[in-house]
């Protein structure tokens, strides 16, 4: 186990964490502003990936595909908000869980009907192929670009929320919905915009990750559950919490899967150790989430005081 390998896994963890942040940011905004649990967020991730793969294959240009993926996810998000989600804000969490569970069934089957049952393949754009030398390790240029891009989007999102008029309204909506409606802000439009913004971020994450994994129906749900772990660890409604939570989950999950089997192999005999290590590593982030909830029931960065 060399230092180069550890550094590579660490970078993979950060890259994974940043993609999780893109997913979690939308989820945590929607919960913070509208008080809604959206299980269908993973479907928007899937829509982004599918549209990106289809358009990139048709035009031969990854970046046009990426734009199409983001636009499709945002449009699907706005449509879902207007048709279904809007009726759920006043309902309890059980109804929200069920209605968005139903949306997953509908969207997954819808995508299967349109694109067929087989996975699509999205290739890394030619300008981002190959590796780049980082001193002790040759690292994938595309993954490095994802890290840079993830940081840029996070900064952009921070600027949007902290510096713009829309951001002020979003923050106002998080602290007091009735009050900002009373002050004359069109709350229905604001909700649609926030939902579409979250959907666009999910679509972006799906399209970017689609190039290093296969694009298939059901790809959104594992990421969705991880994003829930992230926002529960970070504190539901907090963008800063989502960032910290996403990096924690990304790095701990990647490093756990890498280190635990090796660590166990030095203590016990090899075959049993690898199995135990792998089993424990896959449970690690859920263990982390349970610990956070036991000691900080509102997450690391509670959004409302």
């Amino acid at each position, binding site marked *: 186990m060399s230092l180069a390998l550890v550094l590579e896994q660490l970078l993979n963890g950060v890259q994974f964490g940043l993609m999780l942040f893109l997913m979690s940011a939308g989820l945590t905004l929607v919960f913070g502003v509208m008080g809604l649990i959206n299980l269908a967020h993973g479907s928007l991730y899937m829509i982004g990936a599918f549209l990106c793969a289809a358009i990139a294959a048709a035009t031969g240009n990854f970046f046009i595909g990426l734009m199409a993926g983001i636009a499709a996810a945002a449009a699907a998000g706005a449509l879902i908000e207007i048709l279904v989600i809007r009726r759920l804000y006043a309902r309890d969490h059980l109804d929200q869980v069920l209605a968005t569970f139903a949306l997953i069934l509908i969207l997954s089957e819808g995508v299967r009907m349109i694109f067929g049952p087989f996975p699509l393949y999205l290739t890394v754009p030619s300008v981002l192929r190959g590796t780049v030398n980082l001193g002790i390790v040759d690292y994938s240029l595309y993954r490095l670009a994802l890290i840079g891009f993830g940081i840029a989007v996070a900064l952009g999102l921070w600027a949007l929320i902290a510096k713009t008029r829309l951001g002020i309204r979003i923050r106002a909506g998080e602290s007091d919905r009735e009050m900002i409606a009373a002050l004359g802000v069109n709350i229905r439009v604001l909700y649609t915009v926030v939902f579409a913004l979250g959907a666009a971020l999910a679509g972006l994450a799906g399209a970017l990750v689609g190039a290093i994994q296969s694009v298939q129906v059901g790809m959104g749900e594992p990421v969705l559950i991880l994003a829930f772990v992230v926002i529960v660890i970070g504190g539901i409604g907090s963008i800063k919490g989502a960032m910290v939570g996403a990096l924690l989950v990304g790095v701990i999950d990647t490093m756990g899967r890498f280190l635990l089997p090796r660590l166990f192999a030095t203590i016990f005999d090899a075959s049993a150790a690898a199995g135990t290590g792998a089993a424990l590593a896959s449970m690690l982030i*859920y263990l982390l989430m349970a610990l956070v909830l036991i000691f900080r029931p509102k997450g690391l960065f509670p959004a409302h005081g």
Partner: protein
Amino acid sequence: MDNARKEWLLNTAIALALFAVPLWALLADEPFIITTATRIAILAIAAVGLNIALGLGGMVSFGHALYLGIGGYVAGIAAHHAFSGTTVLGLPGTNQMLPIWAIAMILSGTIAGIVGALSIRTSGIFFIMITLAFAQMGFFFTLSWPAYGGEDGLPIFVRNQFPGLNTARPWEFFLLSYGVLLAALAIFAMLRAARFGAALMAIRQNPDRAAAVGISPFGIKLVAFILSGMITGLAGAMMADLTRFVSPAMMAWTMSGELIVIIILGGVGRLFGPVAGAAILVCFEVLFGGLTEHWKLWLGLVLLAVVLFARGGLIGLLAGRAQHG
């Protein structure tokens, strides 16, 4: 006719139908229909378990597939060791359902006790997420634990046995499942009518007022959660015997979602809600699954319509609103 009487008649009709249809299938030699009815009965047992936590206690557990899976793996592991003549933790395997059920209920009750003790302090979305997280831990543990099949699952070569019955025959296994379902429903009805159930429902409706009259929410909710996990665990052991196969998919989060869907389709907190819901879900799958490969799209639309427009599920639709909200 008042709603309580209507609900009683409807419940009787559902119970009779679930018995009469497989009986007809036995005479008409249609084993597939008997197996389908058995699946409905076993899923209904699992949902009756969840209905104690969700319907009576208002605890939205999004991780009840964990107990289903624990029960399933108890049955699978016991049969595996009985088949190969080896021991597990110093105990021999067994192919008898009664000890398997006992172990499945003790183990799922213990795990439910741990999960409940850690999660009942939280509420709302946090409760949903922490129960989901524990179920995911179980899912990934079984997925990456190679000793009992890991990802591939564990087959049960011969269905486990019950004294006096030949469980390999579909009809006799159905009778057993139907009997257990009736027993689970009786336990649910007794709990709901008892002081315990009244306290549990009071806590659901208003925890502060319940605390003010001297009911301690934590202990009562924890006991309800444990009972809930035990019944779902029992259903898991029977489910594994029905399919003669157990795999991590039993603990997948979609399974937890399906159990909630069953309760919502039937009617939350209603005695026969889980039975009606399981029947709707399984019949939907069998009927529409044969017509179109995209049946899940239609299931999603029906579910969405039920949540948005027909609150109260099938029982609520046919027998009116429950007397206690």
